[in-house]
């Protein structure tokens, strides 16, 4: 299992692996928004939590279709399905690799990008915490979407349409955590709900993803 994780990480950082793609996209969004909205600090500070979370979410979405597509095309997925490790473990490792290459860089870089949007005081802390708790759910849910659309030519758009509604609860509670944190209010409830969504996704979705892949390999 660890071998699969290491292989995926290695593939991601090699040429054409797409590492940093999500991060670059996130940077573009956070740089462009002030140009579009105007430089007025109060407005930016107000919308910063939402924009940062939407940007992180879209950045996550960007690399989802690669999770299984490449393995499907070169036949590795067939071979992994007949290998001794269970498919549930395969999809869990795939999701973990996706989070390490997309979600984790976003968590680390988000406070820096927060400066561009004039995020206030406490917000930096809550942004990092909420992204750290929320982005694993984005990767796991996205892996499920990728498993559903594996084998479809140009399945990327369908994947986005399938996955975006499932991302909404994470987005709501993630952005809410940052907003409340910035305004100095209690953040316990949204943070707990965010963590709950992540925990439930990690516990349940690998089984659904593995089942979807089994059907799609037929």
């Amino acid at each position, binding site marked *: 299992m*660890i*071998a*699969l994780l290491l*292989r995926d990480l*290695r*593939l991601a950082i*090699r*040429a*054409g*692996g797409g590492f940093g793609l999500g991060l670059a996209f996130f940077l573009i969004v956070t740089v462009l928004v002030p140009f579009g909205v105007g430089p007025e600090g109060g407005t930016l500070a107000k919308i910063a939590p939402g924009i940062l979370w939407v940007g992180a979410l879209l950045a996550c979405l960007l690399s989802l279709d690669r999770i299984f597509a490449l393995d499907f*095309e*070169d*036949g*590795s997925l*067939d*071979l*992994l*399905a*007949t*290998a*001794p*490790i269970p498919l549930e473990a395969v999809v869990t490792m795939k999701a973990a690799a996706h989070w390490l290459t997309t979600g984790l860089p976003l968590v680390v870089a988000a406070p820096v990008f927060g400066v561009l949007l004039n995020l206030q005081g406490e917000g930096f802390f809550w942004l990092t915490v909420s992204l750290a708790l929320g982005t694993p759910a984005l990767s796991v849910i996205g892996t499920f979407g990728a498993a559903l659309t594996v084998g479809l030519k140009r399945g990327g758009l369908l994947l986005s349409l399938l996955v975006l509604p499932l991302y909404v609860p994470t987005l709501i509670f993630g952005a809410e955590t940052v907003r409340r944190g910035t305004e100095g209010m209690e953040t316990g409830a949204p943070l707990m709900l965010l963590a709950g969504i992540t925990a439930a996704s990690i516990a349940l979705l690998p089984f659904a993803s593995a089942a979807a892949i089994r059907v799609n*390999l*037929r």
Partner: protein
Amino acid sequence: MNAHLTVTDLAISRGGIPVLEGVSFTLSPGRALVLRGPNGVGKTTLLRTLAGLQPPLAGTVSMPADAIAYSGHADGLKATLSVTENLSFWAAIYGTGGFAPVLEAMNLEALRDRMAGSLSAGQKRRLGLARLLVSGRPIWMLDEPTVSLDAASVALFAQAVRAHLGQGGSALMATHIELGIAEAEVLDLAPFKARPPVDGGRGHDFGEAFA
């Protein structure tokens, strides 16, 4: 390694259309079986069904758990990983150890640090077959294993299969090319071709859908 593969009265379908029915055979340790038949008869589908990638329509397949090493048309190689990285990944997945003898057996020694993406088609195929050797599984299921291999490599492949049979393994191969494995038995799949449904196939499904 002691694994019997017994297939009884198997019926399989491709894309929802039955292709083979009534397939029965036994593959004992130390034996090789070559599947033959015209294009589209269902050789690949049969191998995928036996490998557990799709369910059969009817019939039973009995064999020990985790006995199969499947090799399809695609080699499952990662272009941006080197030859040894590709092999060591599969060795780790199958939980087997060294792959140095495998590199030698498939004549990949000189290519070990090359990226898989820069290999020729035949070299990729050899690397794909080397994966079987690191799998340590007793029953090999090979789909067109010698496509794009030159004569010398086909001989290497035959040698590897013979060594595998000698260790009590078995091999099931779908191919059109003479493999040079004299002891292999041949199973012609053409007689097992599924009869078309009486009302011409599709019409039946429609009837069911609107019933």
